[in-house]
């Protein structure tokens, strides 16, 4: 960060983004924990907490627009403020997905699960690690770490596809509506986690823009977020 005319505002925006990132990480972690332990109170806490994340997004957006309108940032400052605007959108979506997972936990309630959850916690911890690293890379402008985040998206996609096959098997067995419903809900959870990892990849790609002025410099191998499991 330079010592130019936008320094104070960009510092403030940065701090807010870190706070928003911390809330999102916490929401993902808690949503996953609520699902695993069938802790409905924790799930409700995640759902209620989404308002704070949305509120922070609005505050940061307002700060960015104010900076654009009043100080007309250029060069590194311009890249910092436009990147901030993109990053908060990704963070807000991640928060929504955490809420979606918590809602699934509430829907499943305390009914016994069709299978012990092994792959979903794995997927969750991989996605969470990517979110953490992408924010770290954003703060430190660490291109190498950002590139690692992009590479880490591949195993997440693979695991999601594996889960897709397993859960599809449950659904296709037929006969038991509750089992099929649970399998479908867990498939949605996997999908939400896979999307969270995609948003982390987006943030990592923006680090390339911050540092090199070019989004395509990071993730040159072209690992793109997967559109849907059906297209595999």
């Amino acid at each position, binding site marked *: 960060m*330079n*010592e*130019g*005319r*936008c320094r104070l505002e960009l510092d403030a925006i940065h701090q807010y983004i870190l706070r928003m990132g911390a809330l999102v990480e916490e929401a993902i972690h808690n949503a996953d924990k609520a699902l695993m332990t069938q802790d409905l109170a924790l799930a409700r806490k995640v759902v209620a907490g989404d308002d704070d994340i949305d509120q922070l997004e609005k505050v940061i957006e307002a700060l960015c627009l104010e900076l654009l309108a009043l100080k*007309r*940032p*250029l*060069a*590194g*400052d*311009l*890249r910092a403020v436009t990147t901030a605007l993109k990053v908060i959108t990704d963070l807000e979506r991640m928060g929504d997905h955490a809420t979606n997972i918590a809602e699934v936990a509430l829907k499943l309630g305390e009914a016994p699960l069709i299978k012990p959850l092994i792959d979903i916690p794995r997927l969750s911890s991989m996605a969470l690690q990517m979110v953490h690293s992408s924010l770290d890379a954003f703060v430190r402008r660490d291109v190498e770490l950002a590139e690692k985040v992009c590479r880490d998206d591949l195993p997440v996609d693979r695991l999601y596809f594996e889960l897709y096959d397993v859960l599809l098997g449950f659904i296709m067995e037929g006969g038991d509506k509750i089992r099929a419903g649970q399998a479908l809900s867990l498939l949605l959870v996997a999908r939400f986690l896979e999307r969270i990892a995609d948003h982390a990849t987006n943030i990592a790609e923006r680090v390339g823009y911050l540092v*090199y*002025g*070019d989004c395509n410099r990071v993730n040159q191998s072209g690992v793109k977020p997967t559109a849907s499991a059906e297209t595999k």
Partner: protein
Amino acid sequence: MLTPPPQPLSLEIKELTVRCRDGIRVKNVSLSVTAGGTLALMGPVNSGKSEILWAANGLLAEVPGMSITGQVLIDGIDNHNISVKELRHRVGLLIPVSLSRTPYSEVAVSLRSLSSPAQEVAAKVEWALRLVGLWKEVRDRLHQPYNHADPTLLRLLCLARTIARQPGLLLLDDPTRGLDSISRARFEDAVVRILAEGFATIIWGTREPDQAGRVAGQIAFLYNGELVESGSARCLFEFPRDPRTESFLTGDYRRLYALAGSEKRRSQP
């Protein structure tokens, strides 16, 4: 012979160095603008913008105490090989100083040496006044003394005077200095219309990055007489390569001074 109007002229400056008694004003600057293009020379005060513009139309050589090396090619021809008369005709430098009392004569004064028939002069004056957006305002009092204290009117009349002969190269040396933002917009709008007419290549010296971005496709950033960096306005404003450009654009003057200091030390033997 330079290409006659209404063709725009290209400009190429090769290794231009300008020295005066107090030191070096321009250090080995090379840049080029294609015919019909716009280039903003952007830089703070004393960055060498005026010297480059004055060198382009040959005026700098007439300033006592200036030593100039390097080459200025207009339309591919070294400006030393172009007659002073032709240079003044085809290369217009806007000088925001009143030369006459009425709007009509302010513009017509530049057409005097062409010794055209009065009707033709009147047509050219009207064309120039329309192009700078003044015609409606002054047509009813063309031959009455105008208010010289109105800086916007004065500057637009001087612009009309400069373009009346359709110069192929139009040089503007910080032309909106001291104007308010709305007058500045009006002046910039006039220049955009001139550019759209296609008869002139425009070089615009400015201290304001905002203005450089608005008026020019290409920007050259000058600092302490040195060409630091040049490129498309978009690239330069979004991702400058040189830390001095970055510091200038973000207003980080402490870093700019520090970088300029270390540059100076490096260039000294």
